[in-house]
């Protein structure tokens, strides 16, 4: 890995480039490390060798297990020396080597001696080293010393113990929690950093006890915390308390706001900034609360220090998203930052200005930005392009100058991501601002005349095919498209052929001319291009005369595929060539949502037992396979939907159970995923006794017990019910886990022969209307809505009563209906008073359903909702209203 420095430096005989580590080699240094074993230690020389070892490690060199062990044992010899400098290097070296448990024992006694030494520096460092390398068992032995160290009068020692405590809290919380009293004493320390470390540890010890945190904050905000770092911590804890108490404290002033506001006058910049940022991030912050924070941030904008300017402009940029008016006061300072040396600051300033700017300032701003664009990197340009896009959506009247700007920068040099951002923006503007359509399409046409990115060319061609035929003069785009057939690679040519065909299909007058062009494509040297041309020539019909193209042909060629491509891909992979043709209707339409948990950073994995029982992978395919492999359920037909797992037990109970509801046309199967979290038990013959007395339409038909459930390996048991066919029957089920429990000897892992029958109460389970709804998205909601028969529309209004927030109300309704939100409408912007949400889905019986929800705030908290449903069956539209009315 690490290049020996010598190679690089060989060819340059520069005196100034001399390095003491020139030509250093691991093998030689390991040899040198033998001096550690000399009876007469030379501290200087030993220090040098350790430095060399550390240098190697720092350059990325690694030691093998044997080498590391050897070095470690040699280093332990150095505890004999009384040289402070050497000892200090020994500490660092031991931490770097991170010895294994059996090696740690060798140094434990030496370190414990140092921990009780009279020399402060020894105590502090020995604590840090020992806590770093120790495991839990040793900790109880040294706990007494650590507690003493926390209240040591030397701040370095106290800090070392406190910081070690913070680290140890992750691994040995029960021990560290016992130090509460000492830590509390340290919070009062006169030494700034001790106070900071003590406060951090005290808060972490108490973080799960909301009341205690509240008390901590109340008492400290009154007193004076000396250290700026500790004050920053206190501000963070305070905002947390404010956040958590926001829900139950509606009336009157916000608690602790005065404290935050007071911190704006602190003498340390880090505290001022922390407080200002905390205020801007308060939930539902008012402009009166914001003003003082904005004022100090504005001062920072003209600071000579880049870090302050950056911090301020970054925060104001965020504020501008929700409270653009509050930031307008800073516009003049912000404009002078456009020329800032630091390009990050300049970009943030520009995008903030774009957010806060008003209609009249747009033109001036665009002029300034044009100069600026030439000398920043692509990544900054992308940010600017995105800001301009949202500005244009805000001021549609300004589309001309903004569109011009976009087309200008589209012609300039730039990488793929940047060009893609511009093209995406133009496409969005064309879609949302009808007046911008024609000029936007022409800009795109010009761009593909000289575009090096195949992906963008094909995207634009596709888009042209959709929008071009709808313009006043579709023929003017044909030239641009046909040029592609001559000049580009096969992928783009094929795309161009499809686009031409679309023009031919949609615009009858163009059809003869398009046919001429398509016929020429029959001689292309690429298979795909020729195939496409042949297909279109044969299906569009009319032999190139001016005739209308049949609706079904259009639907076949250009209709949208309402099946998720992933599902289609999977089904095609599973298809085995046979007499039977592949049936596209057999592809599941359910949109798979990726479990979020997978994306979370590793290292924070829940520990084995506390984790919820992991069922088999929750994909439709896997469930389908699993269920069809069970003979009892094999004749239930096609699986309509499987729900997400519903927990039936609290976290960290003896047995963890969750249930997945599988809906068939005439049956429902409950799949109980069980995990046994008691190492001393083996469960056998596990069943769930379901009481369906509150679910009248359901009758139990089969049950499949789980033969045995050993410790920590999840298993499943099933119960099946019959229900009236095609009817969205609902009901409540109570569940009891019944099993035979056998004691297991933990040392041998063998179970006793005799078991005892036992029961375990689980929580209730409900089959609700949403279980009969598949989440199926549509790509263009408006189109889909308009093609649906208006006769089947049902509209009604509902009062939802007081709600926590608009977003919460929207979510509740989405969950109630179990439908797929479209076009990102499930996200409610902060502080908005009304919101429209679009949903789509497929109801049992394969009935497509579209829902348009309009929410409005009525009074401070009351939410009113207008629900419009269109579906292929009016009975289903009524059923949706019933769901909402009864929910």
């Amino acid at each position, binding site marked *: *890995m*690490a290049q020996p420095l010598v190679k690089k430096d060989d060819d340059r005989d520069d005196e*100034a480039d*001399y*390095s*003491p*580590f020139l030509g250093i080699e691991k093998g030689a240094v390991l040899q040198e490390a033998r001096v550690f074993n000399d009876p007469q230690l030379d*501290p200087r020389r030993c*220090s040098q060798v*350790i*430095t060399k070892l*550390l*240098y190697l490690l*720092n*350059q*990325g060199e*690694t030691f093998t297990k044997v080498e590391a062990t050897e070095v470690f044992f040699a280093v332990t010899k150095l505890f004999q020396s009384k*040289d*402070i*400098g050497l*000892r*200090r*290097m020994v500490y*660092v070296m031991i*931490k770097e080597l991170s010895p294994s448990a059996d090696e740690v024992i060798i140094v434990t006694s030496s370190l414990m001696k140092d921990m009780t030494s009279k*020399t*402060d*520096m020894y105590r502090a460092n020995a604590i840090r080293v020992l806590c*770093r390398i120790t495991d839990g068992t040793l900790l109880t032995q040294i706990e007494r010393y650590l507690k003493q160290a926390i209240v040591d009068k030397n701040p*370095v020692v106290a*800090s*070392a113990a406190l*910081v*070690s405590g*913070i*680290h140890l809290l992750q691994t040995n919380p029960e021990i560290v929690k016992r130090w509460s009293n000492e830590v509390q004493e340290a919070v009062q320390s006169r030494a700034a*950093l001790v106070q900071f470390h003590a406060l*951090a540890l005290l*808060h*972490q010890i108490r973080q799960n006890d909301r009341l205690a945190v509240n008390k901590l904050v109340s008492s400290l905000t009154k007193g004076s915390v000396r250290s700026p*770092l500790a004050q*920053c*911590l206190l501000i*963070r*804890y305070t905002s947390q308390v404010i956040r958590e108490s926001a829900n139950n404290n509606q009336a009157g002033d916000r608690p602790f706001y005065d404290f935050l506001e007071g911190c704006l006058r602190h003498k340390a*910049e*880090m505290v001022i*900034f*922390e407080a200002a940022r905390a205020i801007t991030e308060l939930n539902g912050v008012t402009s009166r609360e914001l003003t003082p924070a904005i004022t100090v941030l504005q001062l920072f904008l003209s600071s000579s*220090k*880049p*870090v*302050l300017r*950056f*911090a301020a402009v*970054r925060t104001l940029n965020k504020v501008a998203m929700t409270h653009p008016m509050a930031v307008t006061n800073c516009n003049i300072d912000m404009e002078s930052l456009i020329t800032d*040396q*630091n390009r*990050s600051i300049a970009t943030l300033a520009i995008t903030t200005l774009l957010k806060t700017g008003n209609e009249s300032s747009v033109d001036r701003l665009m002029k300034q930005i044009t100069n600026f664009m030439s000398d920043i990197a692509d*990544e900054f340009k992308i940010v600017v392009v995105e800001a301009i896009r949202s500005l244009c959506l805000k001021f549609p009247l300004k589309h001309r100058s903004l569109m011009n700007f976009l087309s200008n920068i589209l012609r300039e040099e730039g990488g793929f991501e940047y060009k893609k951002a511009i093209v995406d923006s133009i496409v969005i503007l064309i879609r949302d601002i009808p007046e911008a359509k024609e000029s936007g399409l022409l800009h795109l046409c010009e761009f593909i005349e000289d575009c090096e990115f195949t992906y963008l060319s094909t995207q634009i061609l596709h888009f042209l095919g959709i929008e071009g035929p709808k313009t006043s003069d579709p023929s003017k785009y044909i030239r641009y498209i046909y040029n592609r057939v001559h000049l580009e690679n096969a992928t783009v040519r094929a795309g161009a052929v499809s686009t031409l065909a679309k023009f031919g299909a949609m615009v009858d007058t163009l059809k003869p001319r398009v046919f001429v062009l398509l016929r020429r494509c029959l001689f292309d040297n690429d298979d795909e291009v020729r195939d496409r041309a042949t297909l279109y020539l044969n299906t569009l019909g009319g032999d190139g005369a001016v005739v209308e193209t049949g609706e079904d042909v259009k639907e076949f060629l250009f209709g949208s595929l309402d099946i998720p491509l992933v599902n289609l891909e999977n089904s095609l992979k599973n298809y085995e060539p046979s007499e039977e043709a592949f049936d596209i209707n057999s592809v599941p339409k359910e949109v798979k949502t990726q479990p979020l948990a997978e994306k979370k950073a590793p290292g924070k994995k829940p520990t084995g037992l506390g984790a919820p029982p992991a069922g088999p992978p929750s994909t439709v395919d896997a469930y389908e396979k699993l269920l069809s492999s069970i003979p009892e359920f094999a004749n239930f037909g096609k699986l309509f939907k499987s729900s997400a797992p519903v927990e039936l037990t609290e976290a960290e109970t003896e047995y963890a159970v969750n249930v997945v509801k599988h809906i068939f046309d005439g049956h429902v199967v409950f799949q109980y995923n069980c995990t046994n979290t008691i190492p001393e038990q083996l469960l056998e013959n596990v069943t769930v006794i379901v009481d369906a007395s509150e679910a009248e339409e359901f009758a139990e038909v089969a049950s499949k017990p789980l033969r045995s459930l050993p410790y920590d390996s999840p298993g499943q048991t099933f119960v099946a019910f019959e229900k009236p066919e095609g009817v969205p029957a609902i009901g409540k089920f109570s569940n009891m886990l019944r099993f035979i429990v056998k004691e297991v000897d933990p040392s041998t892992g063998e179970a006793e022969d005799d078991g005892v029958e036992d029961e375990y109460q689980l929580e209730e389970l409900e089959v609700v209307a949403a279980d009969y709804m598949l989440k199926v998205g549509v790509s263009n909601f408006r189109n889909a809505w308009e093609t649906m028969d208006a006769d089947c529309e049902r509209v009604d209004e509902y009062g939802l009563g007081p709600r926590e927030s608009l977003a919460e109300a929207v979510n509740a309704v989405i969950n109630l209906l179990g439908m797929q939100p479209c076009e990102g409408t499930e996200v409610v912007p902060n502080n908005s008073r009304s919101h429209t949400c679009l949903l789509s889905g497929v109801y049992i019986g394969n009935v497509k359903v579209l829902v348009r929800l309009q929410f409005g705030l009525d009074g401070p908290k009351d939410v009113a909702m207008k629900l419009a449903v269109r579906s292929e069956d009016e009975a289903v539209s009524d059923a949706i209203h019933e769901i909402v009315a009864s929910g």
Partner: protein
Amino acid sequence: MELCPLIKNILLLDSEGKRIAVKYYSDDWPTNSAKEAFEKAVFAKTQKTNARTDAEITMFDNYVVVYKFVQDLHFFVTGGENENEIILAAVLQGFFDAVGLLLRGTVDKKEALENLDLILLCLDEIVDGGIILETDANVIAGKVASHSMDAGAPLSEQTITQALATAREHLTRSLLK
């Protein structure tokens, strides 16, 4: 949100982007090649800027990086994207000034490599496992310097710290402004 301010790494690179001394406190870069890639990216991004009078700052890959250059040495401190920039800058300033004190004003690559032990100890005194230990350059330098004293010298750390602090005060003033 992480409540306690955390440092992701501290880097000291030379004018070609090569390591003098680096310390990572986060698992975000599990391998040496990931670390080297990060250093390369940081260096490339900051190389052309002038961070010689004031600490500069940039943001990329969801990290905030503050940095300062002197001679052929490039100092960097990295934090998470939501970290208070000014706290990071304080750590950088502490590191930068402490190195200045320890190298007795001659702050360049040659001197840094010749006193690598001091630099490594300095890193060890500033941050422990991501948590800030100390940001005051005088105290940091004092803790490091006291270790290079003879074993026989009187072991009153505080006085040594203070002596050192006074001796270097005029220098620090100009650095801390």
